[in-house]
């Protein structure tokens, strides 16, 4: 920026001076027109406005033209500089790339030589290892034969001892096995029961239980006059095994007091609730949703 100012100091000074002159001229013209109109307190004469506007327009036009010329000049200079900069950058980049290429080629060459060296060393190591392995195998075979002889003798001895020990152990073993079998059977039974519970919960038996409960409560529900389609109430109930209802509480209901009461009464009237087709299905806590369709 400072470079730019230095480079174009003359045009800038000229432009500032011109702007100042134009501003002074405009201010003078405005003051004159204001001075004209103020004392009379009359509407500003139309011709005065026309003159003012012409002056303003002319000044503005001059200003705009000058600014445009200025801008064009700046643009041209900037373009030239940008082109030069771009060329220099391109040259630098090209040189760098050439250097990189050369280095890469050298590195590849030395790498290939290294690989060759390694290969030869490994081949030598392999033949040495083969020799050592053959010697070791012969030695091992001899040692194994010795060991086997010793072992055979020991085994005969052990076998006799083991036979004695086994006889003693067998009794204990049998007992352990039996206990284990029993444990497994118990586990299996428990597992089967759990499987049964989850099976019946997903089975038609559950649906059947729910249908039985619904039928029982429906028969016990004496609807008050306000219980029509649109009534929507939920009652949470607790039953004990045997189906006796121990609590019924309307938790959410858009009906009146009579409707709520009739719903609680329906649950108590339905007590004892029907037993589930399978005891595994028994639920202490039930949610009953009352929503008459008529």
């Amino acid at each position, binding site marked *: 920026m400072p470079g730019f100012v230095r480079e174009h100091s003359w045009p800038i000074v000229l432009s500032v001076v011109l702007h100042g002159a134009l501003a002074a001229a405009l201010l003078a013209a405005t003051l004159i027109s204001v001075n004209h109109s103020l004392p009379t307190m009359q509407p500003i004469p139309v011709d005065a406005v026309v003159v003012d506007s012409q002056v303003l327009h002319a000044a503005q036009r001059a200003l705009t033209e000058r600014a445009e010329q200025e801008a064009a000049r700046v643009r041209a200079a900037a373009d030239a500089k940008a082109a030069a900069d771009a060329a220099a950058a391109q040259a630098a980049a090209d040189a760098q790339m050439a250097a990189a290429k050369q280095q890469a080629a050298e590195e590849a060459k030395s790498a290939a030589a290294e690989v060759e060296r390694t290969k030869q060393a490994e081949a030598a190591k392999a033949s040495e290892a083969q020799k050592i392995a053959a010697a070791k195998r012969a030695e091992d075979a001899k040692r194994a034969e010795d060991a086997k002889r010793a072992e055979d003798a020991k085994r005969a001895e052990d076998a006799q001892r083991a036979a004695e020990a086994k006889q003693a152990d067998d009794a204990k073993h049998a007992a352990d096995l039996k206990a284990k079998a029993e444990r497994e059977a118990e586990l299996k039974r428990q597992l089967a029961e759990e499987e049964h519970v989850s099976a019946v*919960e997903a089975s038609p038996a559950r649906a059947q*239980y*729910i249908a039985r*409960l*619904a039928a029982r*409560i*429906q*028969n*016990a*529900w*004496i*609807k*008050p*006059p*306000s*219980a029509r389609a649109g009534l*929507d109430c*939920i009652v*949470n109930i607790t039953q004990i095994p045997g189906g006796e209802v121990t609590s*019924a509480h309307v*938790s*959410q209901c858009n009906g*009146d*007091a*009579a*409707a709520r*009461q*009739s719903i*609680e*009464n*329906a649950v*108590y*009237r339905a007590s004892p609730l029907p037993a589930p087709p399978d005891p595994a299905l028994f*639920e*202490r*806590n*039930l*949610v*009953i*949703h*009352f*929503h*008459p*369709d*008529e």
Partner: protein
Amino acid sequence: MHKLFSCLAVLVLTWACPLAHASEFVVEVTKGQTEAIPIAVVPFASAELTAASFDVAQLVSDDLARSGRFKTMDRKDMIEQPHTGANIGFDDWRRLNNDYMVVGSMQADGTDRFSITYELYNVLTKQRLLGFQISSNRAGLRSAGHQIADAVFEKILGIRGAFSTRIAYISVLGHLPDKTYQLIVADADGENPHVVMQSREPLMSPSWSPDGSSLAYVSFEQRLPTMYVQTLKTGDRRVVSAQAGVNQAPSWSPDGKKLALVLSTRDGNLDIYVKDLTTQQLSRITDDPGIDTEPQWSKDGQSIYFTSDRAGGPQIYKVGIRPGDKPRRLTFQGSYNARPRISPDESQLAFVTQENGDYRIATMDLRGRGDVQVLTKGHFDVSPSYAPNGAVLIYASRDKGRGVLALVSADGRVQQRLVSSEGELQEPAWAPF
């Protein structure tokens, strides 16, 4: 959409409840019963005091039973007779299949003063629902009983009881040529009858003003039919219509300012008119060569239900009261449907229908699909009128050749006859609250 909301509600509830179990059952109940609710009204007082005064508990029990909504327990089935809640063995009463019970006591305070204390209990939940004390003289014990029945009815059903209301009807005594016509007002149970008007000539069509202070009716005492409005308290009456020809079937507008009535032209054609009772201005509502009669205002006072034979046999129509409104036919089942009366909430229309030559009371659903239900089984059941709570209808019937008044619950489940001393009873009209 509604279903979805319900499901969501259940879901939210299940989450919100910490005790909720993952596999908790949700049982859907979409139907219920319309049977009567079992209730026991235990005698309030000793046999001696009851004999010396009045059996209030029996009246409460009878009121509740007559409503059709309750099934009352016979006294002889009661294993004990507690007078306060503390003495109720709830489990025993529950085993006797009672959902509710009323217990109370009555004491004589001086020669003509009685105090009644009563309580209402929910036997199933063991909750006390009501507890009141009423003081009354001997003459007021009957109305005290009706008050108790009203309170119990409303507490359990959520709608107002109509046991303390009145009815009006026409009673015809004697035989020609010595007949006497009486306009009578009585308690809703038929007791306490008072003669409001008596004549040697026919009396017809009593109709209550909406405030229950006056009756409009037609009298032939001047040989020609004349329509009167009579104030009950003072007995004052005035002529409201005495046109040449017919003046019949008055019906008060809901605001009590107008009467719908039937007038005839010179050639005897009957049409519906409305008479403004303040300005005496008359406006014609129907104009048809057939017979248009038995008007009844809609609840909003903008339309009139009526009977017309314009399509051949009598059928029920509805027409707006603005000039130019066209009547719309409402009944299509059967060849005879007449005397429309709307329930207080205008959800139901009651009328007389003919079935195999018998006249019976029927209702039509005005909100849903227009289902028709025949409520009664008599040979000549006519002139239905709704109780102001809409739970029961009173109508005129015949029993062994005699005109009697009977009740039927709005769902047709319970029917009962009102006891009457003598005479041919006709045209009952149930008073407003």
